[in-house]
């Protein structure tokens, strides 16, 4: 090529380059060369943005362009929730500062809190009273098992998370809380004003069922004092005149708690047996076992009642007894939380609760709960040996209406008849 040819070529190159710069200068300034398809074709083959860039671009897009004002901190939290939610694990979640704080309080000292003294269960229309603690403020004010709380301090609670409703009812010592309660067969709602007090929640309570000779122990969580309370209840039942004909352990609504407590309680029924195998990310395995002695030597049939709100340590307790053929499970499938979480504290007071290990029952089953993108149940949990859907009018623990409890009794009685 001649000299002038080179010059012409150089000039053309310069012109094209300049055109390109003019065309794409805004993207260059933005540092987001990926945003315009034309520029992408001009400069390079598809250059894939990093996930962080994708997040940042989306965040800024919404913050700048959405037709309503958006709070950037709330938006960021929503992004983080979505990030952790993308794993499909309902226990791996992002907690914004308020939630992180509540969670931390719960795990530290749930035994004592200032409230009204009742255990609540989720209900689509508010919160169902599962148990009213003996001699607590709620009992004194007239709250009953089976009551449905529909408003707290005048605010409707239908559709709210149970933790949220509970935190509305709890409060400062010396204050009162106003509840509106619906009761089966009552036309008008009941208005209650309950003074709050310091509550020590009993976690294991026992009674004899009518004249069946069958003992019934409700375990509501696996906390530090639970073993002692359980032992006391079990001991009382085992020393009834005529002997204990059967034992029903009610784990319905028990969200779990300390594995150590479950190990201790299981040790009353079997000795030196593997409880669970824990597998962490590192591959490390741990298999806690029941004690080599300490069994109470119970000879009668045992039934464990479970439902979808039986989780974690409660599932382990039920599953272990089932796997060693020591009890029959009655009710509905359990929750499917057979995992351990760690909470990591993040900048600004938020927390990240992350599943770090899984439990496997002696039989090797993985009962982890799987949910779809909407959070709806797909699979998981322990299936009961005898499936009994709960009658909608049932009040848990009340033999006359609790059909799952009735089934447990009839199973024990037919075993005895053999």
């Amino acid at each position: 090529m001649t000299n002038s040819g080179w010059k012409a070529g150089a000039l053309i190159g310069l012109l094209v380059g300049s055109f390109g710069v003019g065309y794409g200068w805004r993207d260059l300034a933005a540092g987001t060369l990926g945003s315009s398809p034309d520029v992408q074709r001009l400069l390079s083959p598809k250059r894939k943005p990093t996930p962080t860039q994708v997040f940042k671009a989306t965040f800024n897009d919404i913050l700048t362009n959405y037709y309503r004002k958006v709070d950037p901190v709330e938006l960021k939290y929503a992004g983080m929730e979505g990030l952790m939610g993308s794993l499909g694990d309902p226990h791996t979640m992002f907690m914004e500062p308020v939630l992180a704080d509540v969670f931390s309080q719960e795990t530290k000292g749930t035994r004592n809190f200032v409230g009204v003294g009742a255990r609540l269960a989720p209900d689509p229309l508010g919160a169902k009273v599962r148990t009213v603690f003996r001699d607590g403020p709620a009992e004194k004010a007239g709250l009953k098992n089976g009551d449905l709380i529909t408003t707290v301090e005048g605010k409707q609670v239908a559709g709210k998370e149970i933790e949220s409703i509970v935190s509305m009812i709890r409060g400062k010592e010396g204050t009162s809380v106003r509840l509106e309660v619906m009761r089966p067969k009552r036309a008008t709602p009941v208005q209650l004003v309950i003074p709050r007090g310091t509550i020590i929640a009993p976690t294991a309570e026992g009674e004899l069922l009518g004249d069946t000779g069958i003992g019934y122990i409700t375990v509501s969580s696996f906390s530090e004092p639970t073993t002692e309370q359980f032992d006391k209840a079990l001991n009382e039942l085992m020393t009834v005149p005529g002997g204990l004909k059967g034992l029903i352990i009610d784990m319905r609504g028990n969200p779990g708690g300390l594995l150590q407590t479950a190990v201790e309680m299981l040790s009353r029924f079997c000795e030196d047996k593997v409880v669970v195998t824990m597998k962490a990310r590192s591959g490390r395995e741990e298999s806690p076992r029941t004690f080599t002695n300490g069994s109470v030597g119970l000879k009668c049939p045992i039934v464990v009642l479970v439902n979808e709100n039986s989780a974690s340590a409660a599932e382990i307790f039920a599953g272990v007894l089932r796997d060693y053929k020591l009890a029959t499970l009655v009710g509905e499938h359990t929750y499917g939380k057979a995992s351990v979480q760690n909470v990591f504290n993040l900048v600004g007071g938020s927390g990240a609760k992350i599943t770090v290990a899984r439990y496997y029952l002696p039989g090797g089953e993985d009962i982890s709960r799987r949910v779809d993108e909407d959070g709806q149940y797909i699979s998981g949990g322990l299936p009961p040996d005898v499936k009994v859907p709960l009658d909608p009018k049932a009040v848990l623990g009340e033999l006359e209406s609790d059909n799952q409890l009735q089934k447990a009794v009839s199973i024990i009685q037919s075993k005895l008849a053999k």
Partner: protein
Amino acid sequence: MQQPPKSLLASGVVLSVLAAGLAGAIIRENREQGSSVVERQQAQIGRMLVSNAKDPEIPESEFFYELSKLLKENYVDPVTDDDKLASGAARGMIGSLSDGNSLFMNPAQFKAFRNLQKGQFEGIGIETIYWFSETQLDQLGQRDKKKPDDEQALPDPTAMVPQLRVSAVAPGGPAAEAGIQPGDRLLYIDNKWIIASELVAELRDLQKKVADKKATPDALDEFRIKVRDKLKTSITPARARDVLTLGTTSSVKVVYERRGKQLSATIKKRVVRVQPAGEPKDGAVAFRLFTGSSAKLSRLLAQGVTKLDLRNGTRGDLEEVRKCLSLVGPSSAYGSIGTKRGSATRPFTIATGVRSSKQLELIVDESTRGAAEIFALALKLKGLAKLTGPKTAGDLTIFSIRELPDGSGYTLSTGIYRPLLASTTKREGQK
């Protein structure tokens, strides 16, 4: 020929280079004039990011990175799909807007959405929308006025579930054959109840009736049982939408409601490709603002067609609005775009148009929405079209569309079209 002086050559080169640069920028600007306003704004954000110092209180990019790293190091299973994390975050953010028009879509949904803009339906051949009642809209409106941490301000989430309604039916498609019409409300999919907010309102009504002695307490117990049963086999509106609009082979049983009457049909899914223009019927041509419809409109106008039927249209492709308007009328303002951010409305303008405008007759009703509705109202505003039929849908949201690297994507509401000329936005001296 005599060689020009070197200095002239040199300055000529410099000027051409600058001119080329300017040309590039101008051409880019013009290309973007016709497209959504958003792209320009995105470039503006870009400039903001480069020039402003970052607010140390909101290190959002580090937050994302920090959290992803934490998961990768500690989660019980290996976390390898980074794109899914980013999409998850996008999903969370878009979801937090609680806006039926700003939606995150997974790759399958996004692909179907893009196809629908081009006129290709799958599933049973319908387009659906999330429909909020007046009360719900009021509550949503309230939310904008209150502070974010005022709990009383937040609408009851169970009362805010929208209805799932049919907005358009593909002509000749499976749903059309089964008799489904725009406006029908979907109630059950394969015998699963589509969760709706009315239960909460029904409960409160019933409570009041019982308190007024107009109903017995047993009615409340029965109601509770009904609620429990319904919730056991229920499906979210989002999931119902997927079942109805995705897939090409299975069948689905649909129970729907029209003017208080419940109807049902079992419908087999398949792909239906709808053209932007139909055959002339009663002197009118059915016209839908799918991608590429402006080319069809150009041909129709050349053939002397002046009557268009804009009913039963999908929300269409917003890009087509400008293109179609520029075939009918002059370059001008055709309304304005407003936001709820307190910023001024900006005019909605067409840069290039035709000198001799056409006069059109447009058949509309409440199934005319989105692109078609804006097209119709814009022409009416400029006196270029007569609208025949009941009031249009009022679905005038302008939204941008973004695709993410893993094939998922989202729509984001960026403004609302108003068929008003914003005289207040004129600057001083510009008459």
